[in-house]
Every structure is written in C-alpha cells, then in structure tokens.
C-alpha cells in the first residue's frame, strides 16, 4: 500500500483526477482512526486520524493551516499543507466525514470546499488556544492544576493536550511507543483523554547524582550532560528547535493546549536561559495563570514579587492569579487580595481549595501523610490523626538503629507495622470519631495482642472504654464517645483546667529513668497496672495491659531517655514489609481526576479563561 498523498504538491490536472479517485476511496473506507497498517504511520503523531489521508478541502489557502511554496517541478507557486494536522484530528475528521456531499466525477468545486471549511471552522479551532499555568514556587500545584484544566476542558467536548517543555524528574513512565516521559505528564494526558507521548514533554532531565543529568528528548535518551553544559550549550543551541516543533504540532492538532511551566518564572539569575516558562508562553501566545500556594504562607509576597520581576511584555501575558490549596470550607483571604491587582495589574481569578485524599501519583515526595523517618526494619506506625500534636515525642525513636517511624492514616498501612503509636491530639473527641469513621479503630483493635500499641496523652485517652465530655469542652456539645476499649480505663473532661507539669520517675517494672511532661485536659482512671512510677512519691502513671500488649501514658517526651524507648522497642519484633495502599488503581485515578476537575472548575471561571468565542486566538 502506498502513501496516498505522495505527490500531493503536484496540482496538475492528471494528479487532481487521481486525488478525486482517492477521495472517493476514502469515503468508501469510512472513518478509520489511526491507520496502523500504513507503512508511513504515524506520519504526524501517534494520535493522528487517517480517515482523510488526502484532504478534500485541498488547496484551502488558509494561512493558519498551510502556505504557498515554490514548486520544484514547475517553478510556480504551489499550496503546501504538509504541516497541517487539522483533518488528522479525530473530531475534525468525524465532522468533515458527516458533512461530505455525494461526490461527482469532478470532486468538490471551490465553492463547496469553502462552504465545508466554513462549517468546520464553526465547530473546531484551526489553531489551539494556549493556556499556561505557571507557579510562584515548585509545588504550587501547577501539575494538578494542568490536569484539572485538561479534564474540565475535555469534559466540554474539546480536544485537549497538556505540554511541558522541560521537566526534571526521576518519576518517569514508558509509553506504548517505548517513549519515556515524566509520570505527571502521563497523568495529564490521561486527564486530557489523549495518548501519552514524548511530544507532551519533549525534554526530560533525569538527575543522575552529582551535577550530571540524562537528557531525554521526545521520549528517547539523548545524552548526559552537566548543569553547566545544559545551560551553556543545550538550552542555547538545541532546546529551542525541539520545543517549538513539538509545541507547534500540538497547537495545530488540538482545541486547547494546557502548558505547564517549571518552578518559578522569576528566577532572575537564569534570565535568558529559562526555556520552561516565559519563553514557551511567548512562543505559544499563551494566556498565563500564576498559581500561588497558600499553605506555607507568603502568598501575597510571591504573587506580587513574581509579577514584579517579569518584564512588561511577559507581564502582559498574565490573565490571572490563582491562590491554591485554600483550606476546604475555610474563608477567603478577602478584600486584601485586591492589593495584588493594584500592584501588578493582574486580576485575582480564583481561590481554589485543597482537594483532600486524591489518589494520584505525586511528582515529589512531599506527601507528609505517608512520610517516614529513619531507616530500618522495625516499622513503628504512628497514626496521623487529623489534629495530631506533640509528635516530637516520636523523634527520639529514630535515634535507635534499625527503627523506621511511618506516619499512616489508612488501615492498609498498618499491615506489616511492628508497633502502633496513637499520638497526642488537640481534639481527642473529634479525632476519636475520625478513628472510628476511617476504619482505623477496627484495624488497630484487630492488631491488639499481636503488636505493641502505645497511646500517648490523647491517644491514651482513646485507648480506654469511654471519653465523657460532660460540659462539651472538647467537641462543642456535651458527649460521651466510645473509646477503643483496649485499656480498662475511662476519661472524663469535667473542667476547663489543664495539667501542665514536668515530671521524672522510673519504669514501673523496675530500673530505668524516665523524664517527660504532661499537657492535657481531662482525667483518666483505670484498673490496669501503671507504666511508670513518678517522683517524688512513687505515684503510678499510665497503664500497661501486658496480655493485650497495650500501653498508655500522659507523658510527652517519654522516649527522650533510653529506658522507655528500649522497653517499647523490645516489645516490637523485626520485619521488612513496606505497607502500602491497595485497590483498583485505574478506577481510583479516574475518579480522582474527575473530582479534582469538578473542584477546580467550581472555583475558576473557565468560560472567561477560554476567552468567549475568539476561536482562533
């Protein structure tokens, strides 16, 4: 089978008749999608549609789609559409196929071609609108914002592709074609409903340790180079062509390209050498959005400072500032935000909340919910209560060789743990309700007697039978909540009084000095033997049910001195199992992308972003 468009630039009479025959053959063949049997496939990109290998609209004369070039054969002007990807889009091909009239022996006359093209233009952009998401810092939430926009736009029936000119990441995946791209671009492609491929992330830097990185170009290993060589040679001489050919192809084959920047666009020490931010924005004439993470504070400063350090031409591309990761259900930053507009001329377009519990592969290991301290085979699972407090108590455990402290929040993560700690909390009642709701309570109970379980302060209170907050001091309304029932003890909150005291003492079983401090409201009484004996009078503190391997204490800092640390660890055996979540991966990712897109769209004016009906930008 030959490639049907060979000689397409030859617009002689005989050639045209041959094309009419091919056009008729195409219509009989129907919609074929990507023609993988063609030896030239993919002649443009792996996601192309081959229904109209030869374009019925040829020659359209539209400068957005092609250009006149000098014919090598005749020396005259001839229409070249070699770079046109419009009819190779699945949605455009389907529309055109539906619109095509019966073909006479002459094919389509010019009037018919113009009418058809006009109708297609009413439905599809000839060149994509470019939206670019830039961050004031790394980790501002650019990647997920791009994924959210891709999914929201796809949900509107638009053909969307994500793009990031240069990514530095060790988290890469291999596509169907064997191309390597950053994992996050694969996720964004999935959100956009397009095939993951090298052109979405044409330059991928993989740090190899030291100052050397491997450069992956269009999904294939290209070469290794140092940071110095990268900026002085590669960025200057090779990156521009790589970036522009991939970006251009995407702009020609989609309705919207959602571009992601890298790090901050205002790294003024890199002026002229940054090909991941404003360089791409200018190339794509993109509408730029600045995403500022509010979580660590300084959002006002980052928004104002980033824009103030850009030049006028760059600043003009910005259409809005987005404050990201707002506390869900919390308030707005309010009228004070207006100062960003006043100082920079760029309006605020949204405050987007943090979307909790997304099941998505993360770019960096910034996820504190699953973070681990120390290295080694004995895994101490610390339940990451929503209102966790005084977790410095656990720092000292990592002083011991072979101990790993893992903060966990799902039952699956408890599997394989050698010991469980329920830490302190600022709100015992609410966090206890969370334990029950999340299934953690049942999972912890199931482990009793098998691995040691220690409750500290609020965690100690939770281990008992009940917690009575008779005056509503903790939860707002008076309540009595059922504890885990692992210790024969009950806690009562009956006064707005707080015990704050430093104490010293020893292990109740003898030997070993203990030091700590108590900070708590409420009193706990029970029948288990005490864990510690406190100075000066040998008063018993805490509880230890040896049979169930359950311990409780009010003492913060109890691990600071070695005696209790070692007693607790002696109760925990060694293991080398790494706990992790389970379940249907793909379904969870899809559901998370939908939820993310829904939340983001609810807090941004997407129609305004798309710029009304300015179809071809």
């Amino acid at each position, binding site marked *: 089978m030959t490639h049907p468009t060979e000689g397409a630039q030859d617009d002689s009479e005989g050639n045209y008749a041959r094309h009419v025959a091919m056009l008729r053959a195409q219509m009989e063949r129907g919609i074929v999608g990507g023609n993988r049997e063609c030896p030239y496939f993919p002649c443009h990109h792996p996601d192309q549609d081959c229904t109209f290998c030869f374009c019925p609209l040829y020659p359209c004369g539209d400068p957005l789609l092609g250009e006149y070039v000098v014919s090598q054969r005749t020396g005259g002007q001839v229409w070249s559409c070699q770079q046109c990807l419009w009819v190779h889009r699945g949605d455009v091909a389907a529309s055109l196929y539906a619109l095509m009239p019966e073909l006479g022996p002459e094919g389509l006359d010019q009037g018919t071609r113009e009418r058809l093209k006009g109708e297609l233009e009413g439905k599809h952009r000839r060149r994509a609108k470019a939206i670019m998401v830039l961050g004031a810092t790394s*980790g501002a939430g650019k990647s997920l914002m791009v994924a959210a926009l891709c999914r929201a736009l796809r949900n509107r029936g638009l053909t969307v592709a994500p793009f990031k000119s240069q990514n530095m990441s060790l988290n890469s995946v291999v596509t169907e074609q064997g191309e390597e791209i950053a994992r996050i671009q694969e996720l964004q492609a999935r959100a956009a409903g397009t095939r993951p491929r090298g052109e979405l992330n044409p330059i991928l830097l993989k740090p190899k340790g030291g100052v050397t990185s491997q450069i992956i170009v269009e999904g294939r290993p290209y070469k290794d180079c140092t940071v110095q060589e990268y900026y002085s040679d590669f960025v200057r001489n090779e990156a521009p062509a790589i970036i522009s050919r991939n970006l251009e192809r995407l702009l020609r084959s989609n309705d919207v390209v959602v571009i992601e920047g890298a790090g901050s666009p205002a790294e003024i020490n890199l002026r002229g050498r940054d090909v991941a931010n404003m360089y791409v924005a200018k190339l794509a004439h993109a509408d730029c959005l600045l995403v500022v993470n509010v979580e660590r*504070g*300084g959002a006002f400063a980052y928004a104002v400072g980033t824009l103030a350090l850009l030049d006028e031409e760059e600043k003009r591309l910005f259409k809005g500032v987005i404050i990201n990761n707002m506390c869900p259900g919390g308030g707005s930053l309010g009228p004070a935000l207006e100062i960003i507009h006043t100082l920079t001329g760029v309006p605020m377009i949204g405050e987007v909340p943090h979307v909790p519990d997304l099941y998505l592969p993360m770019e960096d290991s910034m996820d504190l919910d699953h973070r681990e301290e120390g290295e080694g085979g004995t895994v101490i699972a610390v339940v990451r209560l929503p209102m966790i407090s005084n977790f410095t108590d656990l720092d000292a455990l990592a*002083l011991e060789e072979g101990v790993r402290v893992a903060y966990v929040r799902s039952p699956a993560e408890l599997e394989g743990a050698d010991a469980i700690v329920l830490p302190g909390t600022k709100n015992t009642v609410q966090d206890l309700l969370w334990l029950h709701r999340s299934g953690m309570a049942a999972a912890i109970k199931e482990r009793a007697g098998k691995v040691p379980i220690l409750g500290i302060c609020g965690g100690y209170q939770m281990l008992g039978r009940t917690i009575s907050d008779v005056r509503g001091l903790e939860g707002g309304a008076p309540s009595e909540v059922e504890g885990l029932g692992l210790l024969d003890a009950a806690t009562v909150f009956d006064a707005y009084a707080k015990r*704050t005291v430093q104490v010293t003492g020893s292990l109740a079983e003898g030997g070993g000095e203990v030091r700590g401090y*108590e900070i708590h409201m409420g009193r706990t009484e029970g029948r288990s033997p005490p864990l510690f004996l406190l100075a000066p009078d040998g008063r018993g503190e805490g509880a230890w049910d040896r049979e169930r391997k359950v311990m409780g204490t009010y003492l913060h800092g109890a691990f*600071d001195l070695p005696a209790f640390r070692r007693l607790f660890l002696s109760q925990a055996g060694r293991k080398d199992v790494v706990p992790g979540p389970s379940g249907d991966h793909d379904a969870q990712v899809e559901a998370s992308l939908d939820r993310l897109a829904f939340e983001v769209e609810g807090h941004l004016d997407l129609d305004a972003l798309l710029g009304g009906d300015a179809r071809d930008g």
Partner: protein
Amino acid sequence: MPVTGKVMFQGVTSGAGKTTLTAALCRHLALQGREVVPFKAQNVSLNSFVTADGREIAIAQAYQAWACGLEPEADMNPVLVKPKGNGQCQIMLEGRPWRDLGPGEGGPEIIEGLRAHILEAFHRTALGRDAVVLEGMGSPVEMNLKERDVANMWLAKAVRSPVVLVADIEQGGAFAGLYGTYLLFDEEERDLLKGFIINRFRGDASILRTGIEELESRMEIPCLGVLPLVRFASPAEDSLSLSGGTGEKGEDDVRRFWMKELDRLLEGWEGAWNLDHILDLIDKV
C-alpha cells in the same frame, strides 16, 4: 545599665528557617560567652513543652533556650495558639490557658490586650541580657492579617529591632518571595529591613550571583548569607515540617542530641553567612 541588642528574623513563608536561624544565632552568641535569649511573641503550634514552673510554651522556644544554655521560660513565648479544629483555637497566655477563640473572634480589643502582654514579656526577658534574637511568625505581609499582627513588623517597630528576611530556596521562587515581601512593606518597615538570607541552597552558590546582585540593588540592602542545606535533627515545630534526623545515633538524651546537631549545623554554615554584619546589627542599638 547596658542596652540590650536585638535582631529579628522574619520569613518569606512559614518553614523558611526562622526557628533554626534563631537557634543557631543564639547558640553562636552563647558559645561566645554572650548572654542571649530567644523571643517569639506568638507561636501557632501543637508541639509544646512545659517549663520548670509548669508553663506551656512552644517546643521551638524551649529548643532555642537550650541553645542559649538557659532553662525555658514562659516569657520567651508569651502567646501560644493551639488550633483545635473547626476554626477554634486555644490561646495560652504566659504559659497558662487563657481562653478559646473561634473564627473571627480576635477583635481589636483582644489584639490590644495581647500586644500589651507581649511587650511586658519582651521587656522582662530582655532585662539585663546582652541580646535578644527575635523570631517572627509566618510571612510579615499577609495583608489580610496585618491589622492583627502581634509578632512581625508591629513588634519590630515597637521595640525598634532591625529585621533580617529569610527565604527558603528549596522550592524555588526565593527571589520573588523576597522582593514581593519588600514591595508590600511600608516605608517605616523598609527602614527596619537590614538584609536578607537565602536558606537551604543546594549546589554551587555562584549560580545565584546575578540574581542576588539584582535583588540587592532593587531592595537596597545586602544579602547576608546563602546557607547550604544541612540535614540535621531538631524538634519538629508543626505538622508541615516533620523533622528528619540523619546525625549520629546512640545519644541517650534527645536534648543533648539536638544540641550536638545544632553545633553540626553551625559548622556546615561556617563562612556561608555574614555573622559579623549580623552582630553589628545587634550591637548598633
């Protein structure tokens, strides 16, 4: 009586490294034989410590006190805010529970009351000491909170303390964060701002040179340090920065371990910050 010297570290963000810088400078001054004390007007933290007289303060200030060779005292952290969820906070004043506040309940009279307590505590704690190293809170230019500021520029103005601004470069955007903070300061605040520090830098600092020069000229203050990232153990202040220790194991008392780690940090920072300039700021009272 000699006048007490002061310097205040403010951060572009939470977690910029104010707490550590404060502890490190305290340790450095204490090792030089100077009587130095830490002060943080207000801390929002769920990690606290109890002093010998039964007062509750943030563990970060206890840590800084140990760096000074002092026992922690309530005056080093007169206001401790402990979030309870649902927008409710317990306010500890002078280390004792004072009252709970809900969202929007921190009205002007409450702020005025806190400010008075803070100034009293500051003066008590500064009395007879050579120097106070003050730590700000979060970003000093949260414009929605500025009227209710009790720990940043309000305090720096009230006690006439020079200010050094710290930015964490690990996440990028440090130049923007520093410059934006400066742009949002008023004239009087810019007068108090005497320098900036870039924290947690990895690699060859010469790559930052042109950017630092541009910023120095835009802000008209010097860069007082590009501090290399040193992984070291310290008590975690809040749940956004759970600490990670990589130091020597086998130490018995975690407080001694933390001090050893702080000494290791000071070694790692040797020559990376302009301590002479910072000491000049303190002594120029």
